[in-house]
């Protein structure tokens, strides 16, 4: 059990990942504290998405363990998932449902109670799109519908796989600001991105993949 004031939330121990007979990374260890944002860096194919999926508990690693608040995430899976918000590559919205319905659905499924769909959609610049079936939206707009979940989730840990894809400059600044606010409130963020990212007022921890041993370096 972890001490209550221990800042380390996520602890990654000697993680190894194999995909299609290729060892993507091995013996990867790092930790993420409360109030910290980490960016996973590496070339295409170095295993960034695989790493995030392992951290989210979607895949099992070849070796090593992931610990959350002092417990293996596979032992206390439900407790971990409750505190987790994961964004994968695809926007994860149902085309047949409206933007509002999508948002309400994901909130209900996650057991969250507070939801103001209209204001959440406004935050992502989609005000007035609440009753629009999402298959009429552009790729960027679909992503923003998905991102609106950031504004109605009480999750502590955000794992975001390339959240800035198809978002314009204005939107990127907004997301950076939102991440910054989340981190300052004591949450944690782990993300990958192809663009360089600056989060106002927050020091980013960089974790590089692609070397046999990865060690965190500070921004």
């Amino acid at each position, binding site marked *: 059990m972890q001490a209550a004031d221990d800042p380390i939330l996520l602890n990654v121990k000697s993680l190894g990942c194999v995909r299609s007979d290729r060892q993507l990374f091995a013996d990867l260890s790092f930790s993420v504290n409360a109030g910290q944002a980490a960016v996973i860096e590496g070339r295409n194919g170095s295993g960034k998405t695989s790493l995030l999926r392992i951290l989210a508990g979607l895949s099992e690693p070849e070796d090593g363990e992931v610990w959350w608040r002092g417990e293996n995430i596979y032992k206390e899976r439900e407790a971990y*998932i409750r505190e987790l918000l*994961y964004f994968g590559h*695809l926007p994860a919205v*149902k085309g047949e449902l409206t933007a509002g319905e999508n948002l309400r659905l994901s909130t209900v499924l996650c057991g969250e109670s507070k939801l103001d769909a209209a204001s959440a959609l406004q935050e992502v610049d989609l005000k007035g799109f609440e009753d629009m079936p999402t298959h009429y939206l552009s790729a960027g707009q679909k992503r923003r519908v998905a991102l609106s979940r950031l504004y109605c989730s009480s999750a502590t840990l955000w794992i975001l796989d390339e959240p800035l894809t198809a978002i314009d400059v204005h939107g990127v600044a907004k997301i950076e600001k939102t991440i910054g606010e989340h981190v300052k409130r004591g949450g944690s963020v782990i993300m990958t991105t192809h663009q360089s990212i600056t989060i106002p007022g927050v020091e980013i921890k960089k974790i590089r993949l692609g070397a046999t041993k990865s060690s965190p370096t500070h921004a």
Partner: protein
Amino acid sequence: MLKIVFTVIKRDLRLAMRRRAELLTVIFFFIISVSLFPIAMGPETEQEARMLKEIAPIIIWISALLATMLSLGQMFSSDYQDGTLEQLILIPQPFSLIVFGKIIAHWLVAGLPLVLIAPLLGMQLGLSVPEQLVLMLTLLMGTPALSLIGAMGAGLTLGLRNSNILVSLLVLPLYVPVMIYGAGSVEAYATGLGFKAHMALMSAVLLLTLILLPWAAATAVRISME
């Protein structure tokens, strides 16, 4: 706990309603498949009519199997392709419950209509009213088992090339006992042998699939998503 199942059922039903064309293909296939037999026979002699009546339960059951197999691809593929399946796995509830909800929704959309239409088709083939009722009962108990087993097949083959054919191969051997108990019940009833044994075994199959298959299907999906 029940709440999450209902939420998932409502979600899938709402999605199915907005994709109405897919629902109807299953039902139409069932009707056409059964109707092919009397159509192929042409104007019937009395002996032929009697033969048709005798194999009617088998015709209807096999058509139900094939129609269900056709509909299996839809269970997870849409969610898989737009990324929502990942999100469903990441809901803080047992994934087996979520998959169970999806299976129930699938049955409501692809299984229950078959149960309701079957008597009409039975009439077309010459079944008497009590025989139609027995047939309906066997389908009512059997089609959920078909959805449950099919969910596992669909889960195992997520994202594979030509998954439709492979699903059929995986799932058909397991469908065999369901079909035999189902069609056999009606036959046994019709010939006066009594269908208690068949129905008892059908209940056993349904119970077994209810217990084992939601877990199997959920695990299959998670394995495919790793």
